[in-house]
């Protein structure tokens, strides 16, 4: 059964395929980069490698500054390693392919480009993130 990592931002749960997650760390202050988008917190040091840190809350909702950032999810995508700061990492769940649904077919603006589908498990509604697209959105 596929496994996903679930984290919370704005009381909404998101899921990342566990294969893409390298590690989860406590949030650290990043070194800001001048003239970068507002959702870019900056660059951080992960054991000798410099990687960018994206404020996932701000990426979802640029206008607000909600919630305390507690964790960083470090993700490997191809050659690049990047990180996202999130409010809280809740759990790792196995799911049945049957509980995975497609997104409703409405244009939802920005966000839908990096959502892959919806998991509905025990009444929870979890958005599954499309990592390659999310990274494309943030870094290009």
């Amino acid at each position, binding site marked *: 059964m596929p496994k996903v990592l679930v984290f919370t931002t704005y009381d909404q749960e998101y899921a990342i395929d566990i294969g893409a997650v390298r590690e989860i760390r406590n949030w650290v*202050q*990043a*070194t*800001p*980069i*001048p*003239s*970068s988008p507002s959702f870019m917190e*900056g*660059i*951080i*040091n992960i054991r*000798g*490698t*410099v*990687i*960018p840190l994206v404020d996932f809350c701000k990426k979802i909702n640029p206008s607000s500054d909600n919630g305390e950032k507690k964790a960083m999810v470090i993700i490997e995508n191809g*050659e*690049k*390693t*990047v990180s996202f700061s999130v409010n809280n990492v809740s759990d790792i769940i196995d799911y049945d392919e049957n509980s995975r649904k497609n997104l409703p077919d409405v244009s939802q603006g920005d966000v839908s480009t990096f959502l892959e589908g919806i998991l509905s498990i025990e009444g929870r509604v979890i958005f599954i993130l499309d990592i390659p697209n999310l990274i494309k959105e943030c*870094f290009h």
Partner: protein
Amino acid sequence: MNNYVETDDLESIRLIFFEECGEQLSLLEEELSSLDAATGPGEKINTIFRAVHSIKGGAGAFGMEKLVRFSHLFEAVLEKFRGGECTVDQAAIATFLKAADVLTDIVAFYRDGTDLSVQDDVVEELDRYINVPEALSKSPVSVEELPEDIEGISFTPIKIDLPKKEKFLLEITPRIGLYESGDDIRNILSFLEKKGEMEVEIHCDDLPNIEEFNVNKTYSTWNIVIFSNENKNSLEEIFEWSGDNIKVEFLEEKHVSCKLAGKIPNNFDKNKVDEFSGAQKPSRDSRKENPTIRVDTKRVDKLVDLLSELVINQGAIRSQMKVNDIRPGSALDIVISELDQLTHELQENVMAMRAHPIKTVFQRMGRIVRETSRVSGKDVILHLEGEDTEVDRSILEKLSDPLTHMVRNAIDHGLESTHLRVAAGKPAEGQLSLRAFHRSGRIIIEIEDDGAGLNCEKIHQKAISKGIINNSILMEKEEIQNLIFEPGFSTVENVSDLSGRGVGMDVVRKSISEIGGRISILTEEDKGTLFSISLPLTLAVVEGLIFRTQKQNFIVPVSGVVEAFLFQESKKFKISEDVWGYPYRDEYIPIINSENLTEKNKIETKNNSCLIIENEKKEKIALIVDEIIDQSRFVVKSIEKNYKKISGFSSATILGDGGVALIVDVDFLIESVSGKKNVRAAK
């Protein structure tokens, strides 16, 4: 599963083969370019022959038929020269060089799948050496050898190929590897037997008592006399498969006669043996260098990474010492200083492991020069100096393309055509020099031609017509010369076949600056042009000053800092809105406040210090910072690797506390104030 492993193994052997091919090809190139008609072939032709031979051997094993066919032809031609049937002259050297180029192409074809252009002309040239009638190929033919008239009847010799049997004397000593790989000397003997009549004698004098017998040793030697109508090569081929696992010596008769008599001579003719066994294992001899090992570059890179961690860790110890108030000069401080010293030395040694002589790149230029001179019809002599200068591999890799372009440029645009040169009283052949040397902690590479030099007027006109500069701006000579580095600039009216490939000097400058290098021009009309590239020794570590501004730390490379002193607010003066000047020595220079390096919401801080920074063109600016913290060595970490290029900063580093600091791009800072680029060329 098993299958997968096997293909994987084969692939890795293939890679090793290509690596060795690369080495053999550069050896080939090296020997060929030093081959001189005047001094005769000597040992060189043997080295060349061995290089080609070993490529052929490997190619055969991998079934690379094109490579086998061509190298076989090349080898056959070389054999003629080696045997003295043909003499080495300029034409022959030119043919060899062309053949080496083709060989390189074919190897590239198999390795990278690049296009393979038709090389019929080279094949034809080579064929000529093989098929030429004896009288022509052997030049000059001495008069004495010609048959004289006998009693009025003159006759000319006719060459008849008789199957003649040659006598070969061999001594075979198997090494333990032969048996370990499951082979047996009997297999070889049965192959040899097919080649002709054979007598075999085994020497087992060395065989010890059964108690002393060591299963991991070989004790016997075989002496073989064989009468065969095949040549030595075809015999050698039998042993090729066993490689180093078997030692084969082709002996001269006198040696064998005593060997067969069972006496092993002490004063063995060593040279003779070396020459022959050399053909068997080409990569071993011919160069008296320290023994080397082949190490995966990834491992060395990993070592460099780990060392970087160590340097960062050292920074952490230093900052902890400060926190815990450990005084300089205390016992702990002394021990830590020694550790610093050791780390520094370790670092230099590891960096040296990554260093390669620039020879590998320079030799490739030999080919570029030949191609370019052929297409452009200009005769060029290439001079190489300082080929042994060592350059970090990561820099070396990125040096080839810009150098190629500049060499093409120098020949295509720099050098005049032959008749113009002669008219100007210059030697008919264009002189092109490539030099590499160390100067004050940097590597300098120079490309110099003795051509027409840069024509400032022409460049100026061109730049105006291309809209790069405004007609009204008065420019100094050096400024005009530097216009050739502007995007969209090309002085030659008709885009030529060679250098005008859509890549301009701007790309050259860009790729040089990507590896931390600077490029400058020195030119004199009718005398020639000298491009000078200055490169850092390594990309992994930078000596820098760390300063703080807006509570954020930044690094500026020491190479760009001229001076640092206390900033006096009163001395600065306003030039216009947001533009300030500051007196420095006997000139006034623009000010940049380092708070512009940070994000927008500024906090009120006190500017305490001033750094005078300068680029390669001697343009200076005053950088105002809150506080200068320290000078140290910083490990360069790429930002681009996981993110993208950030303008204003070349890279980042990791500080002792684990935080990240940005390394300032000096050039960018200066250009951002000067507004106009390329103000002055470095002298």
